[in-house]
């Protein structure tokens, strides 16, 4: 790949200076005249009917604005995929922390006491908290069978393989919930006036999701709802769907009170009430020949969606499509289901179902290797997908990916073989056991199947009166580098300076709908659109005769000025068009699931301390093929940050549930790793390009979340010669398993 002047260079972040100097404005920095503060009264039981609400004594209730379900001007639901989630509970609650009432007051310190003095009496109903309880249907809490969504992926003839198999390998793998733990808690401000309608400013990922939700909730037309993204301090999917609820709450309070209303969650409320990664259970049954070739098999992938549908159908879909891993399976049947429980709805989180199902398949590959008598390296080498072969959804691999070579390079870079040998020697005697583990995986970029076609994203690029060029998209910056990379793409495309390109604030009154900022789609899909919109500017200027073919950046600026002076504003837009040769069948779940896959091999080396049973990751190698790296520093940051977050997912972060409520909604007890808990991270890229992405880019944002968990658990297995199939894996779990398998005696060493 050739590297451009700007694309491929680590230019300064567009918003970096403002963030460093404190100029950046987050929603809690914003004050409006006459603004009130809002708070949420939430359910304290997991399921039941609301019998009675009493406003306690000692509070000047006439100073408060109180909103309940009956104050909602439009539909009492958070419009997303299925309209089953109320904005405010009306008579019944289905999970802990479900919003019931809203309060607003000019003094934010008056709110906690007021919230506490509202007594709610319930008629409790039996609640369910696990996938198994939901499947057993002992209680029907949603629809007719507790099932939000099912998918069936079928390829070849699975029923015919069992007879031919030398081995049938079975395994069950489970993963827990995970909190996104962005630095900036959720927050919104809403203002209302009858003439302009509702405006909200907030910390968010997807302005048009909120726009849609507010139109329906407030019963307002599109032009009477405006959503503005403030600087956003991290999101990881945690600000994908939930902000629609907070925006709705702030809007309802603003409409009723006539004043602007700010709602900022504190950390405990944010952790207890908002979404987390879906817990999952995956079962594999695989037919294998004696030389380790996978004939095929069955995969059952099930996630706990919590109490309402929200995004679970999409999460379970992505998990299902990734469930086969980067391996060739001539025959496969994947059944995927999202089940209802009385937990607060689980939601979007970096990886979106793929980390769960990839954890399972990469643990299962090790189990197959053990059964057949091969090494973890050999079993993978023998089954890797090759160009021309098809994935589980029968998507043909058209790019020239060589996974064996990728694995080889990772083994070499990590010094895998010599470490493995050394550890085997040292483990015989020492009080610490060392191990090394591999995970190979893939991650599809962009929306699944016909998703991008349905979105039909639009972007605009504008030539400005001052000669600069401005990008207009609803794609948001929340730390990952959206602004920087989209501006790089435009500067490179137009052969102008990076500083000549700016990007508009994501304000639904100004920017077109370029889709949500999710699914590793921004650089690949939106970036490509931005590139063609930028070309449109050049064509117009050329056609108008204000630039020559070989122009300088300075001449380009002059041309923009001249054009705008003569003809007025110049905006060029581009809309997503699906390539005509792409086939996807939504009914059969078959076809081209993703426009591109990123490919990776991760290798983890660990030590298990046999005094405390704690695992430390000593070394981490992340090698990935990502099409083209547009910004090396940001790309490395994405990988290293994702690996860190995934190490937390694997070894530290456990949501402790009690009666459907998170007990450890504090950073003291919800343990995310600190910098001293993390290993040195060695990040390497391969770049093969990608015709669907801007300058050959694929998505990389979610990829690093997928590999660490299985690589680490495979390393723990290597260290202890005992298998663990569940994350998070805490020292307590290791101790119990070792004790039950009599690996540690009751004696003390």
């Amino acid at each position, binding site marked *: 790949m050739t590297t451009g002047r700007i694309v491929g260079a680590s230019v300064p972040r567009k918003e970096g200076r403002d963030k460093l100097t404190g100029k950046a404005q987050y929603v809690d920095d914003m004050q409006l005249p006459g603004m009130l503060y809002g708070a949420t009264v939430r359910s304290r039981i997991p399921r039941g009917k609301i019998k009675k609400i009493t406003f306690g004594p000692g509070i000047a209730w006439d100073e408060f604005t109180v909103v309940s379900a009956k104050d909602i001007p439009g539909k009492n639901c958070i419009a997303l995929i299925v309209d089953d989630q109320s904005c405010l509970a009306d008579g019944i609650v289905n999970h802990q922390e479900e919003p019931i009432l809203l309060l607003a007051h000019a003094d934010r310190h008056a709110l906690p006491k007021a919230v506490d003095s509202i007594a709610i009496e319930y008629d409790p109903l039996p609640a369910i908290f696990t996938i198994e309880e939901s499947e057993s249907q002992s209680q029907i809490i949603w629809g007719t069978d507790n099932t939000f969504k099912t998918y069936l992926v079928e390829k070849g003839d699975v029923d015919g393989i069992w007879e031919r198999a030398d081995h049938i390998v079975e395994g069950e793998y489970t993963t827990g919930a995970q909190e996104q733990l962005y630095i900036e808690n959720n927050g919104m401000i809403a203002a209302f006036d009858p003439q302009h309608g509702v405006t909200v400013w907030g910390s968010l990922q997807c302005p048009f999701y909120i726009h849609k939700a507010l139109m329906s909730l407030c019963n307002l037309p599109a032009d009477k709802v405006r959503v503005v993204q403030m600087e956003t301090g991290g999101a990881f999917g945690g600000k994908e769907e939930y902000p629609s609820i907070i925006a709705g709450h702030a809007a309802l309070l603003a409409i009723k009170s006539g004043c602007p209303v700010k709602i900022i969650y504190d950390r405990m409320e944010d952790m207890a009430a908002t979404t987390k990664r879906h817990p999952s259970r995956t079962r594999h049954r695989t037919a294998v020949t004696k030389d380790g070739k996978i004939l095929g098999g069955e995969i059952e992938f099930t996630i706990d969606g919590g109490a309402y549908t929200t995004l679970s159908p999409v999460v379970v879909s992505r998990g299902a499509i990734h469930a086969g891993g980067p391996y060739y399976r001539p025959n496969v049947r994947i059944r995927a289901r999202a089940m209802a429980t009385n937990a607060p709805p689980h939601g979007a989180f970096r990886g979106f179902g793929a980390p769960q199902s990839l954890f399972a398949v990469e643990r299962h590959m090790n189990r197959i290797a053990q059964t057949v008598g091969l090494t973890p390296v050999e079993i993978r080498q023998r089954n890797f997908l090759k160009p021309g072969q098809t994935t589980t959804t029968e998507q043909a691999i058209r790019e020239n990916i060589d996974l064996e070579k990728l694995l080889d390079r990772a083994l070499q870079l990590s010094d895998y073989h010599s470490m493995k040998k050394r550890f085997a020697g040292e483990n015989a005697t020492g009080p610490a056991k060392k191990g090394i583990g591999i995970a190979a995986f893939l991650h599809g970029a962009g929306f699944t199947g016909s998703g991008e076609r349905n979105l039909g994203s639009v972007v605009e690029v504008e030539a400005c009166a001052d000669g600069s060029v401005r990008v207009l998209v609803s794609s948001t910056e929340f730390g990952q580098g959206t602004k920087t990379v989209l501006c790089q793409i435009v500067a490179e495309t137009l052969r102008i300076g990076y500083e000549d390109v700016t990007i508009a604030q994501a304000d639904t009154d100004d920017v077109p709908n370029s889709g949500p900022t999710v699914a590793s789609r921004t650089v690949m899909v939106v970036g490509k659109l931005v590139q063609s919109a930028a070309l449109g500017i050049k064509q117009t200027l050329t056609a108008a005769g204000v630039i020559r073919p070989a122009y300088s950046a300075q001449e380009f600026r002059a041309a923009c000025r001249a054009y705008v002076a003569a003809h007025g504003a110049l905006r060029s837009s581009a809309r997503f068009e699906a390539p005509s040769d792409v086939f996807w069948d939504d009914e059969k779940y078959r076809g081209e699931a993703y426009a591109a896959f990123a490919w990776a091999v991760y290798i983890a080396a660990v030590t298990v301390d046999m005094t405390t049973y704690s695992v430390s990751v000593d070394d981490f190698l992340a090698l990935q093929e990502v099409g083209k790296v547009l910004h090396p520093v940001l790309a490395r940051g994405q990988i290293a940050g994702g690996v860190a977050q995934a190490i937390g997912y694997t070894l530290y972060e456990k949501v402790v549930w009690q009666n459907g409520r998170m007990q450890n909604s504090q950073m003291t007890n919800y343990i995310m790793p*600190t910098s001293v808990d993390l290993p040195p991270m060695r990040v390497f890229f391969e770049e093969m390009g990608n015709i669907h992405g801007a300058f050959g880019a694929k998505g990389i944002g979610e990829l690093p979340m997928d590999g660490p968990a299985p690589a680490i658990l495979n390393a723990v297995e290597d260290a202890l010669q005992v298998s663990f199939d569940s994350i998070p894996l805490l020292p307590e779990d290791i101790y*119990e398993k070792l004790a039950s398998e009599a690996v540690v005696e009751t004696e003390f060493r």
Partner: protein
Amino acid sequence: MVQYAAGKLPARKLVSVWNLPELRRIETFPDEIRIGAGCTYTDLRQNAIIRREFQLLANAAGWTGGIANQNRGTLGGNIANASPAADSLPALLAYEAELVLVSVRGERRVPYVNFHTAYKKTKHAADELIRAVCLRRRFLDYFCYSRKVGARRAQAISKVCVAALGRLKGPIVQDLRVAVGSVAPVPLRLVETELVVKGKAIDQALLSVAGRTATAEISPIDDIRSTMRYRAKVTGNLVAEFLQKLAASAKNE
């Protein structure tokens, strides 16, 4: 402050004892060091005598919270807050500290052992201030061992923490003090364990007996941070690790 921020303190009017110079001194005498209760963890970590003669305390100070907490949190606060998980307290037990308590009625000096009477309960009267913590300077020739087992390497509340001192004469354990945190309603000195080890040579059999005795002596619980079974087993393991290192220390000399 933690209670205050969580809204669990009914009192809203508080008196600050921060920066009272009388509480912030570390005074050294030939046979004793008197640490003002208002000394911060950073003060403890930076004091040369504490670092040299009372390593267990310096270690505990170094793994309490983060740097900001160490700059602001005090030893007196750690004692009076009386959390069973407090990191400095096992060290004070091992060194057989004495406390100087002060009130309008005057000063009194009490042994620190048994100062914690029950979960979050202490012997100091409501109007008493902890003025200082006194440590005898007679541990220079002891082997010291301390370890904190938390859910991560920094910024973690202990699941188990141990502070231990030992002295050998030849192969025989002549003196031994083992104190633990987070495995009982109060910080605990493992008296029984000390008894079974004292006067014996350290071998595999003794490690087992010591580990088992320690496990029997504590009363850990299941809570949000760990389990009873894990805490019991790890406490035993740590005691065994301490004795192994103590035995090895003789060989190294």
